Structures are given as C-alpha cells and as structure tokens.
C-alpha cells in the first residue's frame, strides 16, 4: 500500500477519489468508493494501526501492566484533556493524542478528545448504535432552531439497514416509533436488576422504555462478518485495546481491510491535509495539499471527488483553512456560517443507586453492550417541558465483589481471598440533545500554528440554560424512577463533564436546503463546491440524543452512492 510514496509525477498522484480521514466515517467512504471501483487515496494524519498486529496490549493480563492499568501521574498531568476521558488508561493511552503535541485554544473549557491513527476513534468508541427517527430529523423544524434537515427518515432508512448488516449491530426489535428497529444480530439481554427496573418503569409510565443497548458487537456473526475476518464477540470488554477477534466494529477490523482487498485502496498515514485545492477555472476542487508529518514536505494529490471525514472539528479546521480568491473564508463558506452551530451531547449528569432485592441473582461473564438504554421520553410527540428536546440515558446494573479491608495479617489475607457479593448497583448517565447556536463555534487563530504549520483551532462552546434545565430534569426523573423501583442510596452528580467530553462534537458544516443558511445539501455536497462531500460529524444539522456514529456511517454510504452515480454520468 505504501509503495507509491516516492513518485512525484502528477499522474501517479492522481486518484478517482480522495478520503480525508480513516475513522468511522472515512473507513466507510473508503469501503464504498473502492467497492464501486474507484481508485481511492485515504489520507490519515496519524500512524498506521493494523488490525491485531498493532494492538500491543490486547492480550495482556492485568498483572502484566506496569501500573496495573493506572497511568503515571506525570502522564496524567501532561495530558489534562485526554486524562478526562474515561478510556485514557495504561492499556489504551497509545491511541490518544498527547495534549502538548496537538494544542488548541479553549475560549471556554472544551475537552477535545482525539485519536490520530489509522482507524481514528473507531478503535476507542463506546460502540452504541441507534437509528434516528423523524422525531429527530423534524426536531429543528418543529421546535424552531437551527435549520430544517434536508432529509427525513425515509431517505436514510435503507442506508441504515445497509451499514448495519455489514458492521453487525446487536439489538432487539423493540417496536418503538421514536427509535426505529434495525437489521439486528441477537441483542444482549438485560440482567436481573435491569429487567426488573424495565418492568417497574413501564408499569408506572407506559411510555418509558428500557431496552437492551444496541451496539456494534458480533453477538452471532453472519457470513459477511466472517468474510471480513471477524469472529463472535468474546465478552472481554477490553475493546479500547483493539479486539483480536474483531468482535466490535472498527475501521481497522472491518471497512479498511475490506477496501484494501478490492485492490483500489491506497492508504497514506502521516498525512495532514493542509487544504483542499480549489480550481477557479473549473469551478471545483481538484485535490488536496498534504503535509507529510515526518518530513514536513508538502505534496499535492488530485481526484475527481473528495470526501472530508477528518472528524467533526478537524473537518471544520481544514475547510476553513482551504482559502482561495473565490472562497476567502474557507471552501464553500459563502454565507460565513462555517464553524458555527457546533453542538454536542449533554453528558452533564449521572445518577446511581443500590437495590437490596434480587439477591438470588448476579451476573456471570461480561456484557459488551454495557446494559440497558433508555430512549428519549421527553417532548417526543409534543413539547411538554420548559426545555426543548430531551435526553436518552444509559443504564447498567451490576453487583460488585466486596471485601472487608480492615486490619492486618492472616485475617485480612483471608478476607481478601473470600470476597462476598454486595447489593446491586445501578447507574445511569444522560445523553442530552443540545441546541446548535451561532454562538457555539470554532474558528482559526490568526497567528498561532501547530508543528505542521496548521492554524490552531479556537473552540468556543458552552452549555446553555436549556442544557441545565434538561440536566436537572434527568436527575428529577431518574430519581423518581429509581424511587418507584425501590432503589436506595440514590446519588446524583451534575456538572461533572465539560462540553466535548461526550466525544460527540457535531456541526459547523451543516446540511440544509438553502445555501444561504447551510453549507451542505441533502447529499452532503458542499452547496458551492459540488465535488466535495462532508459526511462526518461536521455535517450534522442537529444532534438528536442518539449516539451519532451509526448515522455518520449511513450518511457516508448514501453520499458515496450518489457521488459515484454523479461521476459515472459525467456530472462530477
């Protein structure tokens, strides 16, 4: 794959398509483009990470880690942003960027969690995958914020099916109109306390559901998954290390090797895209300018179509940096809205409790889905609270092994070796929709640059009153639900996480009907530069409350299908 690095003729730097980024959406773009026969160059700013081979910690036992999983304090202190991510531990720290190497400017506190390597954050994601419904796509129009989505559920439903079948999504057919069912492998059943809670809540409210979390794990692989070289998930729950079984979906285990097998893929790691090249005569983009991160050499690559999948905020950065006399404010940014209306998910509250009942059961093995999922139940059919939109929530119940740690000597040793089961612990965290606003934005610093000469990104994103009200409502409602279930020791924590720590940053290059108020059309094409497609988080008009990755995958496959048809009929 790396054989073409030293050639410099234009012809050999010319491809049918270029994909910027190899994470969850870039991997999909690569798979779809190469399968459709396009010679495709995938540019990744970080190093290569080969499936299994480059998962150095994947088969390590806890006692094989120098600090038993903990990171040395100097590493923690040197990386305050990464260190606030739950997954930044001794077994996975090598998949996170080091803060000092990749500075950005926080005009307000914002945790920008990044994984710069082939596969991006698809190695690290929490693997939760839910479809959107029209209650989500119609949100901005109904509630009067952002702009109307240019698509509806019917436009994407088949593409959800398409990506679900390939990625492998475990879940149950729950029959909920606001969380459409998909093409599921068997779901991971709720455990005793989660099931109990589900029944109690449904009895009381009738319209509040707790379902098995839908996740990108191979609970029962189909032939298409074996063809990818993946096997059944083995319930390790060590996913952040990279999975030797390919039990969960990542670019590394799935889309990229698939693309490689077509013979149409060229993958170039260590490639920061400085800008997209715009040709004024032709009225379209002709390629990209790449900085080799090792040599700092600038190299141009050319293609008919360009997919920008650099991750939401980096996509904003590189498009804003793609200036020309036609586009002095960034490629396709005629209306000046690029970088604005950035949104995220409100993760500002969580709640926990204990339950003394169901002592006759515990769990055995590990649940890769993580437990249950509470789909949004607020303001679904109509506005009913003093805040807009709503929140979904994760829910998990578990019993811990407890030990009497008092004293010393043979008795303590005996106690350590003979743990007993504690009560059930139940915990839930909110995932709230936030309202995209012009005042939540990213922009380029006019003077400061990084090691490669790229302008530093300034991030100015804050919670608003709607978020605070929603956070309070989550605590109130979950407290009520926990109380109804007879749970005790209910404890809520709020305002523990700053924006960005949800790792669901979205927007800035939003889709819409009107070029005056949006950057992308319904096919994820830049209104003003039709051969550039943006299908990562940057394209999102609103955020809904679902985990976003599945929607990026579906939008990407859909956009590639359209783009290739346009190429083939001479439109692009």
């Amino acid at each position, binding site marked *: 794959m790396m054989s073409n690095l030293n050639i410099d003729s234009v012809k050999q730097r010319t491809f049918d398509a270029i994909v910027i980024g190899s994470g969850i959406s870039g991997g999909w773009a690569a798979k779809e483009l190469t399968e459709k026969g396009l010679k495709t160059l995938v540019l990744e700013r970080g190093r290569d990470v080969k499936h299994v081979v480059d998962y150095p910690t994947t*088969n390590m*036992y*806890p*006692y*094989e*880690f*120098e*600090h*038993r999983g*903990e*990171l*040395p*304090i*100097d590493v923690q202190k040197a990386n305050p942003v990464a260190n606030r991510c739950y997954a930044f531990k001794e077994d996975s720290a090598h998949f996170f960027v080091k803060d000092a190497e990749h500075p950005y400017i926080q005009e307000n506190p914002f945790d920008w969690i990044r994984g710069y390597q082939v596969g991006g954050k698809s190695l690290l994601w929490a693997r939760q995958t839910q479809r959107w419904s029209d209650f989500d796509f119609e949100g901005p129009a109904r509630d009067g914020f952002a702009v109307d989505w240019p698509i509806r559920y019917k436009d994407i439903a088949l593409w959800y099916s398409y990506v679900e079948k390939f990625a492998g999504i475990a879940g149950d057919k729950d029959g909920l109109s606001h969380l459409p069912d998909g093409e599921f492998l068997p779901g*991971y*059943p*709720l*455990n*005793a306390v*989660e*099931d109990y809670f589900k029944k109690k809540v449904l009895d009381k409210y009738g319209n509040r559901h707790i379902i098995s979390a839908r996740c990108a794990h191979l609970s029962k692989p189909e032939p298409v998954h074996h063809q990818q070289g993946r096997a059944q998930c*083995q*319930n*390790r729950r*060590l996913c952040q290390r990279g999975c030797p079984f390919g039990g969960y979906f990542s670019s590394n285990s799935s889309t990229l090797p698939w693309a490689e097998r077509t013979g149409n893929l060229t993958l170039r790691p260590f490639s920061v895209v400085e800008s997209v090249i715009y040709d004024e005569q032709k009225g379209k983009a002709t390629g990209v300018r790449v900085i080799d991160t090792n040599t700092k050499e600038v190299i141009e690559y050319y293609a008919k179509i360009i997919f920008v999948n650099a991750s939401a905020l980096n996509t904003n950065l590189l498009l804003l940096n793609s200036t020309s006399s036609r586009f002095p404010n960034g490629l396709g940014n005629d209306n000046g809205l690029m970088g604005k209306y950035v949104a995220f998910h409100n993760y500002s509250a969580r709640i926990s409790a204990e339950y003394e009942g169901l*002592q*006759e*059961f*515990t*769990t*055995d*093995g*590990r*649940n*890769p889905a993580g437990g249950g999922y509470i789909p949004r139940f607020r303001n679904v059919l109509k506005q009913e609270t003093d805040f807009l939109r709503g929140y979904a929530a994760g829910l998990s119940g578990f019993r811990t092994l407890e030990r009497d*740690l*008092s*004293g*010393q*000597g*043979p008795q*303590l*040793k005996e106690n*350590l*070796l003979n743990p007993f*089961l504690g009560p059930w612990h139940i915990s839930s965290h909110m995932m709230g929709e936030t309202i995209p606003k012009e005042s939540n934005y990213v922009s380029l610093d006019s003077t400061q640059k990084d090691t490669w000469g790229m302008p530093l990104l300034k991030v100015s994103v804050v919670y608003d009153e709607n978020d605070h009200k929603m956070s309070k409502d989550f605590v109130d409602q979950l407290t009520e639900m926990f109380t109804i279930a007879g749970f005790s020791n209910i404890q809520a924590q709020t305002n523990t996480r700053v924006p960005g720590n949800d790792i669901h940053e979205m927007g800035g290059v939003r889709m819409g009907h009107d070029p005056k108020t949006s950057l992308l059309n319904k096919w994820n094409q830049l209104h003003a530069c039709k051969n550039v497609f943006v299908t990562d988080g940057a394209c999102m008009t609103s955020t809904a409350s679902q985990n976003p990755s599945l929607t990026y995958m579906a939008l990407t496959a859909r956009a590639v299908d359209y783009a290739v048809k346009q190429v083939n009929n001479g439109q692009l």
Partner: protein
Amino acid sequence: MQRRSAIKNLMIIAGGIAILPSCAKDKEKGKASIQLNNLNIDAEQEKLLAEVSEAFIPTTDTPGAKALNLHLFVLKMVDDCHDKTDQEGFVAGLSELEKLSEKRFDKSFVNCSVKERGEILKDIENSKNPSGKVFQFYKIAKDRTIQGYLNSKYVMTELIPYELVPGRYNGYFPVKKS
C-alpha cells in the same frame, strides 16, 4: 531480541511485572533495589517497608507480600503514580513508623515480633488521623499492598483466576447459597 531477554533476566518480578533494578553502584551505597525516579528510599527503608507489607499480607499456606515482592510494587506505584505530597508523606510516615516502634518496644520495627508489629499497625489504623504522616504512609502502603496482591500474577492465576476471554454473559446467574 537477545539484548531484550538479557535485560529481562535482570528484572525484578514484583507481583507479576518486571521492574528495573537499580544499578550496582547504587546498591553498594545502600540504595533501594529498584530504580526510583522520585522517591529517596534506602535499602534499610525498603526492608522496613517489606516487613510492613508482610504484616498486612503474611505468608501462610500461600505466599505473602515479601514472597511476591509487593513492597517493591508499592514503591513503584508511589514513585510513578502519586504526587509529591503523597511521596513526601509516605517517606516521612515510614520514618515515623520506625520511631513509634522504638518508642513503644524499644526496637526497630523489623526486629519486632509479629504480634508487636500487628499492635503498632492496629494502633495507626484505629487512630484514623488522616493529617498525620504516619497514617498517610499507612493508608498508601496498605492500599497499594492490597492492590498489588489482588492483581498479582499468583493470585490472578492460582487463587482467583482472571478470565481474559469469558466468552459468555448471563444476567441471571444464580447465587449459590452459602
């Protein structure tokens, strides 16, 4: 690769992981047996800590703290994963423990009987004076000894096997009545 395995042979195994030994010159000066970057611990103090760890988790019919080198694991963790305040408190508290022993039994902790050691440690645990250095030392040493023990290769393979690949999940697993 040969060089790597040579280095490996020189490593000290503490609870299942290899720790770099200090260099021979340091040992002559009575330094700790493992390489420490932040802690200033001499061989005597290391020996004292070994006895404290052993007092927490003694050898019975199965290996205890000393046999598993858990005191070296404690040193490694304090050296790498604790801040300056903890590190200073740890070292100062270790000295104070020795003073307590001298005051109470007129001898060094390492020369105390198992019973005497137990009494000294019990008193510290029951005092629960979190601002005191000796309690700060005690808490860190005890927590890290326990962590090192439960996460040691020996315990995780012989006594409470850790499953790297469970391959199953049952959310209604019946609890055996004891």
